[in-house]
């Protein structure tokens, strides 16, 4: 069996998932695991027909839980490296080999694909970029590390990191700056490499509206605070 796998948490992505899988196949022969998070459409069936291994939640549990199901499966099947990417086609698959290479080299335990490193021209909304700046600053102040894209879901993880994530401390909603701080406190080595991302094909975003974004920021900062007052894991 392959020692690397690609995990894609997906919710109602039947329109995008087959092209995402086809895109991955151009650059990687590694196992593709789609975690269908209780979609109302045929995401799971489309992904299976496209050649992915599908784990289906009977109901929607949230992005973080879907990711964690993938980590638990990968840990159970003894994979050594896991790459996670979104199922909406935002993450360009040509960076998959580079992300894997970085962690396989042994220089770091987790590598984050950053939209803001190199010559990327990614543009985000005012509120979102403000939030990202706030997270960057918080991470810098708390850990001393310079992370340019703390909200990126395009990451590659060493076995010891995703095994660590199978515990109950992994957030069920959206793993974000709080998780980076948690990883730093646990002693994992984090690195970023430049990647390119596309805007979501259907202009769907996870968080929108002043209230939703403010509530989200509040939740992440609360999670950071709790992480800091907890004993180091």
């Amino acid at each position: 069996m392959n020692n690397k796998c690609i995990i894609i948490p997906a919710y109602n992505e039947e329109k995008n998932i087959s092209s995402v899988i086809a895109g991955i196949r151009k650059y990687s022969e590694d196992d593709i695991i789609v975690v269908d998070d209780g979609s109302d459409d045929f995401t799971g069936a489309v992904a299976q027909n496209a050649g992915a291994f599908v784990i289906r939640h009977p109901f929607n549990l949230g992005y973080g839980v879907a990711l964690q199901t993938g980590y638990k499966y990968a840990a159970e099947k003894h994979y050594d490296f896991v790459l996670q990417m979104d199922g909406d086609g935002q993450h360009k698959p040509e960076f998959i080999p580079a992300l894997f290479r970085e962690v396989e080299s042994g220089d770091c335990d987790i590598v984050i694909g950053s939209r803001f490193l190199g010559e990327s021209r990614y543009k985000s909304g005012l509120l979102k970029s403000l939030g990202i700046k706030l997270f960057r600053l918080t991470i810098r102040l708390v850990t001393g590390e310079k992370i340019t894209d703390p909200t990126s879901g395009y990451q590659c993880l060493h076995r010891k990191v995703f095994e660590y994530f199978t515990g109950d401390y992994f957030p069920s909603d959206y793993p974000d700056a709080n998780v980076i701080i948690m990883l730093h406190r646990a002693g994992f080595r984090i690195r970023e490499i430049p990647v390119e991302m596309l805007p979501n094909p259907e202009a769907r975003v996870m968080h929108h509206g002043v209230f939703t974004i403010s509530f989200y920021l509040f939740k992440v900062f609360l999670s950071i605070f709790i992480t800091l007052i907890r004993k180091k894991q």
Partner: protein
Amino acid sequence: MLVQQKIFAVFASILIFIVIITLVKNRKLKEEYSWLWLLTGAVIMILVLWYDILLMLTHLIGAVLPTTTLFIFAILFLICIALDFAIKISRLTDQVKNLTQKVSIMEADKPNKRVV
């Protein structure tokens, strides 16, 4: 404290006791969840029947009327009960999440599975 108030409070706490015990007897409420409610009824009963304690507590917390003390303690107990439920719901949420993940992985591992 007026006699009517005393009678009403004693009647209310006896009613709480009867309802809780009946629910536990009929297995509609687990014993482990009943103790906080029974404690609430018992405290109301003690405070009403042992009037000096109620007066002392009223003086201690700076309330004007003993009935205010009863209400404050009733609200405090309700907060405790709500918090106890929140703790239990958090634990249950984690258990449901872990079980669902386990079942989903086991289902996915089945040979000849069909994804619907």
